[in-house]
């Protein structure tokens, strides 16, 4: 009976895992396959002669290193900007009683729903007026336009669960609003801030449309744009290099998840339990 119950859990879980891991597996194997093995092989799921050739050519013969640093710079910048602005906005909406706070929180959420494909033309006009076109750092405020609404909305939900009495106790104890935010609410919001950080970083790292439209010189490209514009010539796909680039490009996100997810889960279950 017990055995059957375990099967009922592990068989579907295993199937879902295979389904989810297959693209990743394909990416890894393609990145280390020799050129002749890419299109002509007896077993596409196996690597017969592994090689680092694609990775070394990617790193030596393209601007990949540059793209990687660009993406890191933009993602970190956009994440720091968005999470800190969202934290303050969410705190104000949840705790400071002012006219229209409810309308504001709905408006923030609605602005997240507007698809980027609609926004990129008006945003381009703004960028041209500001002479920000093809400046890498311009992507930071641009990404903030979709990250701030999302993070604010996420943090509003989180801050609502922190008992109001804690802040009132701190006010009676003599703390100012800024001190309350820093000394009381911030330490208690760490799990929420971590999830906002993970989402922001992942979304900025994988962003494609804005980076493609607003950055045109190779030196200003991000990984996702660089790979598809510089490694596909007409209908010729540099599969080995493309997959190597994608593999290296996923590493930061994997690392972020690897380190923080456990902290995030632990924080969620322990921080507010009285």
């Amino acid at each position: 009976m017990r055995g059957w119950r375990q099967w009922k859990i592990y068989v579907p879980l295993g199937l879902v895992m295979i389904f989810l891991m297959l693209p990743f597996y394909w990416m890894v194997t393609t990145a280390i396959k020799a050129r002749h093995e890419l299109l002509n092989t007896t077993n596409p799921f196996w690597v017969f002669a592994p090689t680092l050739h694609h990775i070394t050519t990617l790193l030596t013969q393209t601007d990949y290193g540059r793209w990687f640093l660009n993406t890191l710079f933009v993602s970190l910048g956009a994440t720091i900007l968005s999470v800190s602005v969202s934290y303050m906005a969410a705190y104000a909406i949840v705790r400071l009683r002012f006219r229209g706070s409810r309308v504001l929180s709905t408006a923030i959420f609605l602005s997240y729903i507007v698809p980027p494909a609609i926004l990129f033309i008006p945003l381009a006009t703004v960028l041209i007026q500001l002479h920000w076109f093809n400046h890498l750092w311009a992507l930071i405020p641009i990404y903030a336009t979709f990250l701030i609404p999302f993070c604010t909305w996420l943090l509003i939900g989180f801050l609502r669960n922190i008992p109001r009495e804690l802040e009132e106790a701190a006010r009676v104890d003599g703390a100012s609003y800024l001190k309350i935010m820093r000394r009381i609410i911030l330490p208690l919001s760490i799990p929420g801030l971590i999830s906002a950080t993970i989402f922001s970083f992942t979304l900025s790292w994988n962003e494609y449309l804005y980076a493609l439209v607003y950055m045109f010189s190779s030196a200003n490209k991000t990984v996702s744009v660089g790979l598809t514009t510089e490694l596909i010539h007409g209908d010729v796909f540099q599969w080995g290099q493309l997959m190597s680039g994608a593999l290296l490009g996923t590493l930061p996100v994997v690392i972020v998840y690897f380190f923080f997810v456990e902290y995030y889960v632990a924080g969620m279950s322990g921080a507010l339990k009285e």
Partner: protein
Amino acid sequence: MAVVNLEHIWKRFGETVAVQDFNLETNDGEFVVLVGPSGCGKSTMLRMIAGLEEISEGRMTIEGREVQHMPPKDRDIAMVFQNYALYPHMNVFQNIAFTLELRGVRKAEIKTQVEEAARILGIEHLLQRKPRELSGGQRQRVALGRAIVRHPQVFLLDEPLSNLDAKLRVGMRAEIAKLHRRLGVTSFYVTHDQVEALTMGQRIVVMRDGQVQQTSTPLDLYDNPVNKFVAGFIGNPAMNFLTAHFEAEARRLSGESFSFEVAPRLSEALSPYTDQQVCVGVRPEHIQAVRDGSETRASTLKGTVELVEPLGSVTEIQVNVGGTLITAQVDRNINPRTDDSIELSVDPAHVHLFDMSSEESLLAQQAAA
């Protein structure tokens, strides 16, 4: 220690009036209890004294200083919250020290003061623990420690015992009272539990629907309630109420299955109610069972026993008297049984009378006149 003066305090939330014309002047070092059913405005009043809620109208002074426009930190008050509101990420020491740290007290001095507070409350061994590692009673002590370490002029306690189990509550009740005697700080204590109010308060303010019903000492509230609400709210088990007809000629108050002799102290108050109905209130401990064969009493009730609850020292019974359920605390040796017919006698010296429509006490009206 301080005199707190609250003059014509109002609180409105939009259309709703939460507190209506609240007036009170405390004595120096007094322990004042605000009591009433939930939603009566007692917590709102406390929060206004703390400065966590703005007052809509009125004047509030602490030791002569007008405070109604000051932020909480400048009012020189300390507050204990119902759910303790301990900072979960700080240990007990840091929780108590936080307020001193914010005031820029030196580290060595903080340590001395926190240890002193911990010693008073018997929590020295818990200083390094986090709030989640403490029991309810221990958390309550930490919350008290956080309040006393400031040496405030006024203590505000918002239902501090309501999250504790019954036994612990009795113990903590005594400890808070002891702490108050030791520190002598003017205190406001909010509770919905009338037993807590009676046992702890030097003066009790009974509130209902945002209005003060009566402000007095515990025993005076118990003996001389000004209206039916206070009479029914204070005392456990609650006062019994019966509708009676006043027969002026016979000098009797009677209703279905009962008839009371009118004691001389009541006749003047009853004079405007000749041949009219009044509400009669009798506390359960002032009703006794009439033993078989004993002489007929002047004030009696007849009914059927519906419930018998032996409490050890006395037996509590519920008796159906002409359709009204009456609670009485009778001698345990009477040993009544359910469905028995029973005759009860009432001590006429302890009968309360209320107007049927205004519910005001006739005796209080008489005293006021």
